[in-house]
C-alpha cells in the first residue's frame, strides 16, 4: 500500500513536470504520418442503435487500414454543446472528422471554416462547404420493403408505428412504409405514436403495448431500443428492428431490421483523404450502395420472403422507386404525377403524409 502511494506520488510529480513541459511546447505538431480520424456521436456508443452502428464503422476503418489511420471518438455529445467538442477534435490533429447527427450541422460548418485543411463529413444535414461533405442513407427504401411485408402479413389490417420526432427522415419513412403496405393491401391502417425521444426503452415499450392493445399485430419503429421488439415477442406478435440487427432480442418476432451500414462510406472517405482526392459533396446511399441493409427476412412464409427479396432487389437495381406516382397527399392533392418519381429534395424535406394516414403533422 505504502509503495503504491509513493509510486502514485511520483507519477503525479512527473505529471506536473510533464504538464509544464507541455505548456511550453504546446502547439508543436504531433509527429505522426497516420491520418487521425475523429467521430462525434450524439448518443452513447453502447446504445446498440444509431451511435453503435456508427462506431462499428469506426472500428471497421481502424481494422481496414491499421497502419494508415488512427481513430478516436467523443460520445454522448449534447447538440447544444457540440461546437467545442468538434473543435477539440480538429485541434488534436484530426484530419477527417465525422459529425454524425443533424444537430451538429451549424457547429460543423463553423469549425470547418476555422480549419480549412481538415475534412468534415456530416450525417443527415443539407449544408455543405469546401471541406464539409454530407451523407445520409435512404432509409425510406428499407421502409418500403417493410411496408410490403406488413401489408401481406397483418391479419388485423392495422400496423403500429412508433415514431421519434417529426423530421423529414421519419415522415418519409412513414410514407414509404404506407405506400409499400398499400401496394399489397389498399385498406391497411397505420396507427402512429410519437414518443418524442430517440431512446427511452420504457416509453417505447409502453407505446408498443398501447399499439398492440389497440389492435395492431405488427410493430415498426423509428426509435433506437429493442424494447418494442421484445414486447411484440412477449405477446406473440411481429415487428421490425431498427438501426442494428436486433434478431437476438426477438428471434420469434423480428421480420427484418433496417440497419445502417456506414463502413463503405467511412472507409472510402478516409482513403480519399489519404490519396488527396477528397472532395466535398453529398452522398445519399440506399440499398444499392449497401448503406441501407435489410437484416435476413425471418418469421415469414416463403412467398412473402420471396416478395420482400424481389422488392429489395428491384429497388437496388433502380427498377422500383418507393415514391413512384401517383402519390396523393393526405388532403387529396397530387404530390407526384403518374409515371414520375419524387425528386430527392421533395423526400429530403417531406412534411406531409400520403393518403390513408390518419395522424396529423404540426405545420
Amino acid at each position, binding site marked *: 500500500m505504502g509503495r503504491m502511494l509513493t509510486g502514485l506520488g511520483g507519477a503525479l510529480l512527473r505529471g506536473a513536470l510533464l504538464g509544464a513541459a507541455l505548456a511550453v511546447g504546446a502547439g508543436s505538431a504531433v509527429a505522426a504520418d497516420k491520418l487521425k480520424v475523429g467521430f462525434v456521436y450524439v448518443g*452513447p456508443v*453502447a*446504445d*446498440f442503435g444509431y451511435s*453503435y452502428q456508427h462506431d462499428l464503422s469506426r472500428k471497421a476503418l481502424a481494422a481496414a487500414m491499421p497502419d494508415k489511420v488512427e481513430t478516436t471518438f467523443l460520445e454522448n455529445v449534447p447538440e447544444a454543446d457540440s461546437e467545442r467538442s468538434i473543435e477539440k477534435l480538429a485541434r488534436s490533429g484530426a484530419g477527417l472528422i465525422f459529425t454524425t447527427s443533424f444537430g451538429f450541422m451549424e457547429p460543423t460548418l463553423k469549425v470547418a471554416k476555422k480549419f480549412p485543411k481538415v475534412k468534415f463529413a456530416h450525417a443527415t444535414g443539407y449544408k455543405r462547404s469546401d471541406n464539409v461533405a454530407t451523407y445520409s442513407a435512404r432509409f425510406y427504401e428499407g421502409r418500403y420493403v417493410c411496408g410490403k411485408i406488413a401489408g401481406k402479413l397483418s391479419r388485423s389490417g392495422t400496423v*403500429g408505428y412508433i415514431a421519434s420526432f*417529426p423530421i423529414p427522415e421519419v415522415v418519409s419513412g412513414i410514407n414509404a412504409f404506407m405506400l409499400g403496405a398499400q401496394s399489397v393491401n389498399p385498406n391497411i391502417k397505420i*396507427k*402512429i*405514436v*410519437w*414518443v*418524442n*425521444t430517440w*431512446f*427511452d*426503452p*420504457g*416509453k*417505447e*415499450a*409502453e*407505446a408498443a*403495448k*398501447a*399499439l398492440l*392493445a*389497440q389492435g*395492431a399485430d405488427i410493430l415498426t419503429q423509428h426509435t433506437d*431500443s*429493442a*424494447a418494442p421488439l*421484445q414486447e411484440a415477442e*412477449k405477446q406473440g406478435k411481429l415487428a421490425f428492428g431498427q438501426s*442494428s440487427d436486433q434478431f*437476438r*432480442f426477438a428471434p420469434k418476432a423480428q421480420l427484418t431490421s433496417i440497419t445502417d451500414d456506414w463502413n463503405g462510406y467511412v472507409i472510402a472517405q478516409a482513403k480519399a483523404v489519404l490519396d488527396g482526392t477528397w472532395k466535398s459533396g453529398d452522398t445519399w446511399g440506399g440499398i444499392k450502395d449497401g448503406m441501407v441493409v435489410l437484416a435476413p427476412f425471418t418469421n415469414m412464409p416463403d412467398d412473402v420472403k420471396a416478395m420482400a427479396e424481389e422488392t429489395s432487389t428491384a429497388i437496388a437495381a433502380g427498377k422500383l422507386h418507393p415514391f413512384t406516382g401517383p402519390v396523393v397527399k393526405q388532403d387529396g392533392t397530387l404530390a407526384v404525377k403518374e409515371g414520375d418519381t419524387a425528386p430527392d429534395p421533395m423526400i429530403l424535406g417531406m412534411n406531409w403524409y400520403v393518403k390513408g394516414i*390518419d*395522424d*396529423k403533422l*404540426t405545420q
Partner: protein
Amino acid sequence: MTLDIVQMVLVTVLAAATPLILAGIGELVAERSGVLNLGVEGMMIFGAAVSFAVAMQTGSTVLGALGGAGAGLLLAALFGILTVGLAANQVASGLSLTILGLGLSGLVGANYVGIKRDPAPHLAIPGLTDLPGIGHLVFGQDGFVYAAVALVAAVSWFLWRTRAGLMLRAIGDDHVATHALGLKVRRVRFLSVLFGGACAGLGGAYLALAYTPFWSPGMTAGRGWIALALVVFASWRPLRVAAGALLFGGATVLQLHAQAAGLGLPGQFLSALPYLATILALVLLSLGQRQGGSLAPAALGRVFTPSR
C-alpha cells in the same frame, strides 16, 4: 372499449408505475427521517446495470434483483457518509451521486450491451390468472410488482404503527429535540438513507430485468427524478406515492393510447400531459386542504451535528 382492453391498459399502467413506486417509497423513508437525497436517478441506473450484470453472471433473476438493491445501497452508503456523517450539503451531494452513478453504471454495463435476457417470470395461477377483467391485473404480475405493493403497505405500517417508525418521523421533524431525548439521530438517518438506496436500486433492477429486459446506458431516462417529485406530490405519505405513480404512469400510458387512437393533437403537448397533470392534481389537493404550513418533514434537508 371492452373489458379486456381496460384490463390491458391497467396492467400497463401498473407496470409503468412500479419503478416509480419502488424508488419513491425508498426516498420517502429517507426524507421522512430528514434527509433529502437527490441522487435517486444515479442509484437507480447503477442498480439497473449491476442487477443485469449479476443476473447474467448467475443466471438468477432473484440474485440480480438483490444485486441491484445492493448497488443502490452502496451508493446510498457513500451519500450517507457524506451527508449524515460529515454533514455535507444534501442537495449537492445527491446531485454528485447522480453523476457518479451514471458513470459507474456505464462502466459496469459496458460488457453487457446488446445482450438479451428473458424477462422476470410472471405469476400464473391456473384459473385465477385467466379470470376475466381482473385476472391478469391481480394474479398475473411479476415479482417486482408484488414487491412494490408489499413495500408500500409495509412502509405505511412501519411509519404509523410502530414505535421505530414514530421515532423516524420525529427525527425528521426535529433533530435537536429528538437528539436531546436520546434518540440516535445519525444512526436512524443513515439506515433510512440505505433503505432508500436499496429501493432505488430495486427500481432500476425492475427496469433491466423485467420491464425492458436488457441493459442500455441511460435506460432509466429520468424516472429517478419523477420518483423524487412524487414523494413531494404525496405529501410524504406512502399510499399517496403509489397513487401519484399510478396517476403519472396512467397519464403517460393514456397519452400514448390517445395518439394511437388518432387524436390529432401535437405530440409535444400530449407528452407534456403527465407533468401538467401531476402539477394540476397537486394544486387541486392543496385547494382542498386549505391549511397553512408545509407538510414536509420540518428538518428535511437540514444538517445535523450532534455535539454541542
